[in-house]
């Protein structure tokens, strides 16, 4: 019995050490430029660490892991996903900036990094990174309410909120995407919500089911079960056009509120990483997004498999950043 125990103990300790070694392996990579024609021939020189500044199991984590699974085949190397949580993602993004710029450490994150800068929590933003590209868009940002609330669509919400300023309770997480969406909505329609911090997606769902708040902004994909069961009613989606998976849900635009929000999941490197490495990584991402299996996996969670190259990613981020900055400036006035 004792030997069995020892074996399990030893085996698991060994497995753990290998995992940790894998996670650290990037540091030992050689930086020697290859003499051949292809400047990226020696890349990747070992396992690549993807830093996800969000917890395991969330949408950021899941999207990254799906992409990583396919990238492993494209780049023919191991990809280790490392969840570095804390201070709204700032801890994780900093980790990537602190790592060696050898292309073995990459950041996978979304719009929140821009918000951290807009709200003054970090002194750097997207332009501090060399972007490789985007593989997923979440266009299913929505406002949800309960079936017995006084408003069941956007126009009646605006009417009610105008008549009762400060009374409609909006559940957000201060400084997050849902918070800035709320600010944008207030700015556009001239209503005034009672904005409360409730926490992450799960806490918001609990608060709406428990009847403590009137509106919860979140992604449709996270709550499709509650919509099907009739526990929640979607007021609209912040997309350019109605979603294929939810043709009955109108867009905010149709209802006269011009808010279109894409949550983009981008991959970025330290600014000093050689261009050729980032380009090679970017090409690998493009191949993954073209893969039908990948597309299916992403669509299963109500997201859009879309590839944006380096330039398009930067342009998109710039556009999002400008709209966030504007919403923030307006709210400060």
């Amino acid at each position, binding site marked *: 019995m004792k030997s069995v125990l020892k074996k399990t103990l030893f085996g698991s*300790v060994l497995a753990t050490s290998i995992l940790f070694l894998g996670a650290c392996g990037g540091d030992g990579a050689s930086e020697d430029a290859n003499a051949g024609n292809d400047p990226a021939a020696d890349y990747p020189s070992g396992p690549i660490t993807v830093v996800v500044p969000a917890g*395991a199991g969330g949408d950021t984590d899941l999207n990254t892991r799906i992409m990583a699974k396919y990238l492993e085949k494209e780049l023919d190397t191991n990809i280790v996903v490392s*969840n570095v949580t804390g201070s709204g993602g700032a801890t994780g993004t900093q980790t990537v900036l602190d790592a060696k710029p050898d292309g073995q450490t990459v950041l996978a994150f979304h719009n929140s990094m821009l918000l951290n800068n807009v709200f003054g*929590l970090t002194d750097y933003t997207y332009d501090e990174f060399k972007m490789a590209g985007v593989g997923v868009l979440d266009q299913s940002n929505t406002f949800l309410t309960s079936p017995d609330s006084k408003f069941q669509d956007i126009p009646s919400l605006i009417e009610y909120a105008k008549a009762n300023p400060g009374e409609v309770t909006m559940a957000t997480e201060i400084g997050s995407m849902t918070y800035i969406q709320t600010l944008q909505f207030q700015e556009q329609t001239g209503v005034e919500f009672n904005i*409360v911090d409730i926490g992450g997606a799960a806490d918001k769902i609990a608060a709406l089911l428990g009847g403590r708040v009137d509106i919860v902004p979140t992604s449709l994909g996270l709550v499709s079960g*509650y919509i099907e069961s009739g526990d929640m009613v979607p007021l609209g989606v912040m997309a350019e056009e109605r979603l294929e998976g939810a043709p009955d849900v109108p867009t905010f635009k149709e209802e006269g509120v011009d808010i279109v929000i894409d949550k983009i999941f981008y991959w970025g490197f330290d600014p000093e990483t050689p261009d050729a490495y980032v380009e090679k990584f970017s090409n690998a991402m493009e191949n993954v997004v073209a893969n039908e299996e990948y597309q299916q996996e992403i669509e299963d969670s109500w997201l859009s498999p879309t590839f944006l190259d380096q330039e398009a990613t930067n342009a998109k981020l710039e556009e999002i950043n400008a709209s966030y900055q504007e919403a923030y400036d307006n709210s400060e006035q």
Partner: protein
Amino acid sequence: MFDMLFAGFGSVMTLQIIMLIAAGVALGLVFGSIPGLTATMAVAICLPITYGMDPIAGMSLLMGLYIGGVSGGLIPAILLKLPGTPSSIATTFDGYPMAQNGEAGKAFNYAIVSSFLGGLLSIIVLIMIAPPLGRVALQFGPFEFFAIVIFSLTLIASLSGDSLPKGIMAGLLGISFAMVGAAPIDAFPRFTYGFTDMNAGFNLLPVLIGLFALSEIFISAEKKVKKGLNAKLSKVNYKVSIKEYVAQGWNFLRSSLIGLGIGILPGIGGGTSNIISYVAAKSSSKKPEEFGKGNPAGVVASEASNNAAVGGALVPLISLGIPGDTVTAMLLGGLVLHGLQPGPLLMQNSGDVVYGIFAALLIANVFMILFLFMGMKGFIRLLSIPQHILYPIILALCVVGAFGVNNRLFDVGALLFFGVLGYLMIKFGFPLTPLVLGFILGPLLETNLRRGLMLSQGDFMPFLTSPIAAAFLLVAAASVVFAIYSNHKKKKGTSVLNV
């Protein structure tokens, strides 16, 4: 329901899935038993492995890890006074003294059987009445959580050892340490002194193992090299009679219900439930002075409640798609990745998977008790390893564990800092548990106070007018008055009620 459960058993009764559950439990036990590695890490590491499996097989492996991870903590808690996980802090209080008295085998018997029965009870509750219980959990908002946290903080009085003032100081110190880093809600960095590393604050794991494990190693490094406990081992007493188990019946039931109740409430979790159950067992005992010196009731209370919290945490996950702790948050991600839609319709739309999960839990619970009983004699042999060999190994594991939390060296520094702090606190007679309790509860207290005030637009009244909140605040007030009274009485030298 029973036909569904039989179908669930049918779907997991394949060799592959049974092996997966067994492997999950074994690996979970290892993770739970090594200070610094937790059930959360075991699930995080294995989650990607399940992606390639079908949903029932994948979730079965994760259930094995969860049950094993929560249970493994009792091994180092009893043998070495090191809580392997936050769920087994209270197990050290009486489990370790029992081992030192040559009753390690007995302590294991009590702990393993309580873990099994506590887990079993909570799984049965989960299977029978998850949906209505989940709806009850929804009634708890910021006002109610604030009141529960206030009540839990008053338990510091019963965990303060000889000196109430020292206990309160330790508790406040814990709350202060929890304030370092980005503040809840507005993420404003506090007490970081310009170090970006401090922005994320201190993680619970380095704090916990620093305070309990490292300090213990430092203390033993002071003493002369001991050859292990060989002499006492030879007359280890394993047997616990049926009569002795029956005597713990009420304690076991109360502790399981506390664990279940706290497990259901999202966000509080097993780290608190074992301490609350311990205090409840102690204050309702006729001989509270025996607690802390090797009273089996303390071991039963802690271990029954932390395993009962597992079923509890799964109640809101299965019935509503709302995770109750860090492990269930990851299980939620696992469900989504396997194409299942968590929420009120999970049971209806994917009943086969849900009942497969229930069956896997019951099987995992059986593997847990089997593995622990089979390994028990081996674990106890650990005590015969000379400390100068055993402790450096544990120290190295603690460092690896602290690093593994977030893959940051900062957490290793924090581990050492809290190790030295714990050492100094022991030297100056300060109790450690109030610090950990303050550290766990401080952020919950602040967050829920601020969220509550946002909901009520600055009005404090809802904290008193919500019936649930009012009830907990009343109990909290009564418990403070009682603590002051008994502390006063103790000083006079009369009967000791609240050590």
